[in-house]
């Protein structure tokens, strides 16, 4: 595909112009523009623009699969309605896969890896705190970027090669395996962080009062907050509910502390 690099760089702007009516339509047409301009001229180009300015929404890293496919279909001069049909079905499928992998798992992996790396580098005194923070931020982010950029680029190529197919690229990687492995890895890292955090809170009383009675009170408050979080989560309420209840609880706690002091 002669416009591969143009589509690739433009695909980074797929979410620009995001709106509730047609979602990523502007970003999609911007990325596909070089191909459309090469293939179509005059009235045909207008029709192609009108075709692709319609509703489009998928996970941004996975958009490459749909972009490549659409570019290929435009080249093959497939019927406009058929192009739209394939584009929409692929957008839904890739949105589901991409949301589960990137937003629900790998984004959390990056966050947890940052904390774990920072703990390791500072506790073992390998780097001073500021450098440790920078390193802990940069390394997981770089790995995440490398994978997401690879998916974007490979998606365009794969989509172009199997263009016209309604399940094009869905078997490109073992998505289920990625989901399984990242879920387990996230959970394992989280357990380590929680153990370290609890150890630090109970043994060193990090953030807590050094006074024994106050510490008991504070720990009771924290346990209540965690229980409140479970209660609101069971009712499918967002975390803000817990935060507000925590504020109310902290007010009672602060009043009691003042009263007993």
């Amino acid at each position, binding site marked *: 595909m002669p416009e591969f690099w143009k589509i690739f760089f433009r695909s980074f702007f797929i979410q620009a112009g995001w709106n509730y009516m047609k979602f990523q339509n502007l970003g999609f*047409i911007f990325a596909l523009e070089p191909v459309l301009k090469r293939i179509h001229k005059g009235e045909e180009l207008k029709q192609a623009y009108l075709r692709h300015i319609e509703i489009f929404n998928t996970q941004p890293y996975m958009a490459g699969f749909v972009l490549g496919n659409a570019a290929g279909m435009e080249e093959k001069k497939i019927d406009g309605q058929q192009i739209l049909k394939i584009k929409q079905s692929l957008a839904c499928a890739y949105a589901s896969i991409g949301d589960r992998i990137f937003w629900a798992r790998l984004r959390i992996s990056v966050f947890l890896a940052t904390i774990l790396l920072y703990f390791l580098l500072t506790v073992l005194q390998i780097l001073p705190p500021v450098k440790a923070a920078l390193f802990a931020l940069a390394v997981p982010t770089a790995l995440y970027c490398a994978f997401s950029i690879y998916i974007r680029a490979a998606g365009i190529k794969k989509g172009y090669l199997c263009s016209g197919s309604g399940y094009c690229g869905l078997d490109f990687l073992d998505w289920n395996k990625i989901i399984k492995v990242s879920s387990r890895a996230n959970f394992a890292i989280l357990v380590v962080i929680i153990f370290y955090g609890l150890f630090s809170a109970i043994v060193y009383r990090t953030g807590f009062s050094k006074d024994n009675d106050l510490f008991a009170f504070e720990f009771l408050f924290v346990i209540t907050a965690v229980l409140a979080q479970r209660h609101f989560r069971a009712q499918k309420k*967002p975390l803000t509910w817990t935060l507000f209840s925590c504020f109310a609880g902290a007010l009672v706690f602060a009043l009691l502390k003042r009263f007993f002091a």
Partner: protein
Amino acid sequence: METKELLYICAAAGLLNLETIQAGQFLISRPSFAGFILGLICGYPLQCFFAGLLIEAIYLDYTPIGGAVPPNGAAACAVFAGLADKSYECFSICFFIALFSGFIYAAADRKIREMKNAWNEFYQMEIKEGKFKPAVWIATSLLADFTVLSASCAIFIIILRPLHSFLYSYPFLRSWMETAFLAVPFIAFSSFYFRLAGQVRKNA
């Protein structure tokens, strides 16, 4: 905080916000990274990094799936960097103000997206007239988001500074905030624990 520093923070937050949604999505604008970068501008990167980590722990509960608009990490970190100082004394107060600023900006973000709905008519019109230039619209969109976020951050910091001073000046209110803050990491990580345990169970 000097006006120049405030402008730098707001401009940097505006650029970071573009990376969140409009361009790239490289996760450089996630709250911990954005906090670190904005902290470098103010001279206390580590404090902003810690605040960013906690803000991120809370905001990760909100997933940007479909049309959902999660709270804005860049705005939250800019407010934190704008209100905090080198000492950790007012950390909890700045943290809560920043945390809720991110939620408030999400409402503004929804309005901007609604506003962009109207652009669709212009696209259609321009296409029919043969004048359609997507790059111009993309640039307009980037500029609009950058301007709105930078201006909002400046307004938030200026308006919320008196609230921050008020909360800080009363020991009782400070103690209230510090107690509430104590529960934040526990709430965030327990929420993570049950969420990730659920993911492992479902995919076993």
